[in-house]
């Protein structure tokens, strides 16, 4: 336990910083948030730059075209790119961090050869078709049906909360292939080409006024059986396996970003005089403690994952539970720092961020679900009721 980075890790960080300092100034301006084709182009251009510099798929295994980096190297990569203000993973998120790893772990040689290289190069992007309106937190209750017809599945149903659906090439889709089986045992994982007939994408407006997500309606969409990854009805396990790729790094960039935001809040409060209010000042001090601790907890989780080679034990759910709440506190404090009319001005970045932060305790497992997981799977309390 010394928290020091090895010489190799320091060298990796140094090279990365140097490279970032060289390329970031040459990036084009960020596209408008509503211009999806431009966003795709921007994000995939960045991915191609990473690819050319040897940073694409850093944490993927080498036999999948990745760099086989350690969790610590991945942490350094995420920390440095966030600090340097590099583009977010954006449109490449599902491909790089979810569908790609799934294919890498569970796909056939042909599937890996077909789908992985374009993700790494930024040639193709993926979206995710998991959630459904009626399933919500109970993801495994999904009802989108896939019926075998010759060499195809014929898929009907609807998906929700799909980001980048308008511009994606592929969708990693969970479908029900056996409606008679227990709910976790009748699900299959398919790669659906987004240009297939029968797909309708409808933007879903969030309370922040943006269209970050879409609903995807599927009306007898034909997906070739060869696009199924893993065995039929084994899709739930296939999906869960993927999570082990994350190895404690899921929130590195976000925690770094929160600490930057907190520094900026303090600077703004000093500027506009609200720093003199001890109630607000002490609140910012407390947030400093929270995000410092969450950063250290991240390092602990990554370090544990590196030692054990697997997912961190008590890390994920405990981290998310605390982090989602604290991040919402951060934006409540931001509203106090802005004060007055500024806190209601959508042209102030923090105002929009405050609205977006409302999803943190809901998305990817509500805080209530996280507490169940922590209590039952980590603390061993009995299920039920």
């Amino acid at each position, binding site marked *: 336990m010394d928290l020091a980075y090895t010489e190799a*890790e320091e060298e990796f960080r140094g090279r990365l910083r140097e490279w970032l300092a060289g390329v970031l100034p040459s990036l084009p301006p960020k596209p408008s948030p509503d211009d999806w084709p431009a966003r795709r182009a921007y994000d995939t251009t960045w991915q191609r730059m990473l690819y050319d510099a040897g940073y694409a798929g850093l944490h993927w295994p080498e036999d999948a075209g990745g760099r086989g980096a350690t969790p610590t190297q991945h942490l350094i990569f995420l920390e440095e790119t966030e600090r340097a203000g590099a583009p977010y993973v954006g449109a490449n998120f599902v491909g790089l961090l979810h569908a790609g790893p799934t294919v890498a772990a569970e796909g056939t040689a042909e599937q890996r050869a077909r789908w992985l290289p374009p993700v790494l190069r930024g040639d193709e992007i993926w979206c995710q078709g998991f959630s459904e309106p009626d399933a919500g937190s109970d993801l495994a209750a999904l009802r989108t049906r896939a019926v075998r017809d010759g060499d195809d599945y014929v898929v009907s149903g609807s998906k929700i909360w799909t980001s980048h659906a308008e511009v994606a090439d592929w969708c990693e889709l969970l479908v029900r292939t056996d409606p008679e089986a227990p709910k976790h045992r009748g699900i299959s994982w398919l790669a659906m080409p987004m240009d297939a007939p029968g797909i309708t994408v409808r933007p879903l407006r969030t309370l922040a006024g943006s269209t970050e997500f879409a609903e995807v309606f599927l009306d007898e969409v034909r997906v070739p059986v060869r696009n199924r990854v893993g065995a039929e009805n084994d899709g739930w396990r296939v999906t869960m396996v993927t999570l082990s790729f994350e190895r404690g790094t899921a929130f590195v960039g976000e925690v770094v970003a929160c600490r930057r935001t907190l520094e900026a809040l303090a600077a703004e409060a000093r500027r506009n005089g609200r720093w003199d209010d001890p109630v607000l000042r002490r609140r*910012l001090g407390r947030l400093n403690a929270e995000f410092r601790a969450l950063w250290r907890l991240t390092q602990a989780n990554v370090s544990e994952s590196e030692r054990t080679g697997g997912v961190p034990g008590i890390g994920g759910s405990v981290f998310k539970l605390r982090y989602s709440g604290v991040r919402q506190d951060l934006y409540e404090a931001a509203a106090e720092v802005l004060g007055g009319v500024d806190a209601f001005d959508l042209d102030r970045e923090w105002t929009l961020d405050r609205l977006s932060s409302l999803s943190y305790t809901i998305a990817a497992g509500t805080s209530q679900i996280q507490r169940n997981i922590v209590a039952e799977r980590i*603390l061993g309390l009995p299920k039920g009721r």
Partner: protein
Amino acid sequence: MDFQLSDDQRALRSGMRDLLGAVFDRDRMRAAVERGGALDRSLWRELGAAGFFALRLPEEAGGVGLGLPEAVLLFEEAGRALLPGPLVATHLAAGLVKGAAEGEAVVTAAEGGGRPVADLGGADAVLVGGGAGVVEGERLEVLTGEVLEAFVAGAVPVRSMDPLTPLHRVEGRWEGAGASEAYPGALRREGALLSAAEQLGSATRTTEMAVQHAGSREQFGSLIGSFQAVKHLCADMLARTEPARSAVYAAAVTGDPVEIAAAKLLADEAAVRNARDCLQIHGGMGFTWEADVHLHLKRAWLRAARWLTAAEAEELLAADLGPVRPLYSGSAALG
């Protein structure tokens, strides 16, 4: 980057747990409660013999030669076991006060500023700042002998809420005679960190107690741990403990004052709120003297009022959010 306990550290921790299991089991703990926390000199010497106080003294000075991370692990075990006595002050005094390192001398600290002074009766020495206390003074004084007697005579014993910690009220500034060269700021920081470690141990223990009770007590025909209300209290206890743990361990590694402030703030909160939730989960039984949970709560409240309070920690952490602080401090990046 390695933020896991080493094998040696794990061995040290389990050795300490074994030691406390042998010399301070629950019966002895409850006996200490019944005698109002009055110090057990033989226990003190056993701790000394085990290296608890000499842990961070260099080997050439007769110490164990280990560092703050190892000390934090030992204090975490002390907190979990509700070990009484001026553990932090005596540990800090090792090398400063003759006999402290060996467990022969009992040393407490007067932090000043109206804070409680613990375990003053029978102490062989008291650390005070040149001014009002370790915290507020600028120079450190070690009071012994007649000076100590005068100090004790001026202190007023109070009926202590924590039955494991006798307390005195010390008012006004202490105008002592001689002063050492040591700067008490470092002592204060280390005191805050070691207290935070005790809080962490307590928070861990009350979580275990809550889970254990929830998994064995039946109400309305079910184990109460199967009710979401209880489950979620337990989950929140862990979600307080684990970030505090990371903060405490990291502060022990870096020794950074701001990280120590974060560690103390979060560990205080984890210890106090976990004890509260543990009490709530125990229901009426948690409100009895026989249950241990109140001992954790009272001790947690007391530790939170010592070395570095929440208000002080928050101001320190706010000051750290300065506009001129560089984003990177050396190669450790977020440090």
